[in-house]
């Protein structure tokens, strides 16, 4: 019986190939646009993750802090916020010297003015502006601490950018979802109306709505699958061309690819069920 439904879906596809190809190419175009944005969002996410990894809090120590006090502070910070690395006054000067690079300028400074510090690599859950702000405030109240820096404005902007990408992806996702539903809905209406005679006969022979609808649903889901694979092929081609010509762009990861295909198929299924529930009531009296 299951084989029968697949045969019927294939028969419908062949008989109304014009409608079917129109649906596939419309869906492929929609999904390609969606995929382009996903690719952009994915690459932005990867970039933000890399930048986010470098977010750290620098805790400047008072000059009179003893080694014991410093070690206790390192342990406390590691426990509360993340692993801390000690940078001595000399190390800080060496880094500064390397960055400045001009020996004459460095010689004009009599004494090393840089304080020793602890660089705290914050835990992932603290990598956002409000959490970092609060952490900095708490750490600055420790008696051993002279000052705390964490690039607040920069972190805030990074968070805003990340939120903007997420909102954009959601908006584009919603628009594409609606487009998929619209395309499948209308394609199936056309297909069923083109086969009105058959649907009427089946209904009069006692076919249930489910029996009549199943081949149409299979056809819609298969069209969405083909369209999604076509769109992924186009995106892969674009990514390869872009990588060769312009700049390194990573392709969607496997979970994203799977999600993309499954989402297209699920949306097609939903649209098909919606269209058929309405059109069968009109046709199969």
């Amino acid at each position, binding site marked *: *019986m299951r*084989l*029968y439904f697949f045969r019927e879906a294939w*028969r419908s596809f062949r*008989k109304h190939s014009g409608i079917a190809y129109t649906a596939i190419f419309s869906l492929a175009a929609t999904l390609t646009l969606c995929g382009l944005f996903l690719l952009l969002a994915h690459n932005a996410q990867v970039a933000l993750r890399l930048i986010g990894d470098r977010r750290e809090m620098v805790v400047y120590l008072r000059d009179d802090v003893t080694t014991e006090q410093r070690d206790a502070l390192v342990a406390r910070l590691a426990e509360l916020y993340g692993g801390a690395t000690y940078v001595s006054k000399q190390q800080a000067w060496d880094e500064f010297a390397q960055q400045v690079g001009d020996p004459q300028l460095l010689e004009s400074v009599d004494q090393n003015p840089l304080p020793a510090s602890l660089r705290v690599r914050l835990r992932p859950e603290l990598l956002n502006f409000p959490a970092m702000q609060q952490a900095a405030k708490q750490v600055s109240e420790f008696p051993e601490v002279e000052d705390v820096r964490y690039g607040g404005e920069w972190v805030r902007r990074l968070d805003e950018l990340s939120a903007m990408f997420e909102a954009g992806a959601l908006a584009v996702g919603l628009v594409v979802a609606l487009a998929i539903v619209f395309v499948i809905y209308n394609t199936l209406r056309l297909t069923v109306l083109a086969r009105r*005679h*058959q649907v009427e*006969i*089946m*209904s*009069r*022979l*006692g*076919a*249930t*709505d489910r*029996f009549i609808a199943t081949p149409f649903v299979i056809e819609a889901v298969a069209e969405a699958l083909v369209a999604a694979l076509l769109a992924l092929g186009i995106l892969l081609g674009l990514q390869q061309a872009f990588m060769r010509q312009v700049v390194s762009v990573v392709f969607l990861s496997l979970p994203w690819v799977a999600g993309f295909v499954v989402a297209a198929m699920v949306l097609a299924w939903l649209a098909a069920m919606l269209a058929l529930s309405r059109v069968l*009531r009109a046709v199969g*009296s």
Partner: protein
Amino acid sequence: MITFEHVTKRYGERLALDSVSWHMDEGECVVFLGHSGAGKTTLLRLVTHETHPTAGTVTVGTFRGPRLARAKRALLRRTLGIIYEDFRLLNDRTVFENVALAVRITGRFVDAEVVPRVLYALEEAGLQQKQGAFPSELSAGERQRAAIARAIVNRPAVILADEPTGALERHSAGEVVALLKRIHAEGAALLLVTTRPGVAEAMGGRILRLDDGRLAGEGAPPATAAATTATVTAAARATLAQAPPSAGAASTTVAEPPGGASAMPPPGPAGPAPGAAPGGAP
């Protein structure tokens, strides 16, 4: 089996059926005879729940009520075998596939079980040689026999026939009447509507006359009594002789109204006993 209790059906202002009451039992043959527009097709559409009564109650087996849910309506239709004047075959499928569709719709059989059932029905309709043909490759009579095979393939308790000979010339009409009589003789109830008194009489069942949506009486109209009883044409004789050897002895003497020059086939060959296995069916 089927009961109409004061059933009225209106299409807007037009009255199609006016407080019609009748009943048919299991295995009975009832023929509604009436002119075009008398309400015959509406009556069948009420039985199949393609339309709903404006007033009154229609009962078909255990299905009773003015408006059945879609799933129940599908279930009801699976208990019926329906034959239309215009055949209603799917032109992009072979005869075998058209008949098999009715079996698959029941959802009770796997693919391997579908084939013998279809072949059995095709053999009964005398179409086993045409199972691979498309409807467009068949004559009108063969198309109607394919539709009959589709109607009987699930062994329904009732066969509904809406002017089954309406689109057929005399010879094919005779074949179809003979086939329907044979199916009825095997035990199926038969509800047939027709405009042709000759066909109504040839069926040999109870005749109810419909006139402008009202029951006008029982039995053939007086004019038919004086009709010429048609004799079997040589062509019909030859065709019926090719029917399955187990075909029954149902009599098919069709009377035509005065002036009708047609001749319907007489007794068809003997039909198989109910439930008998067809010769040559796999």
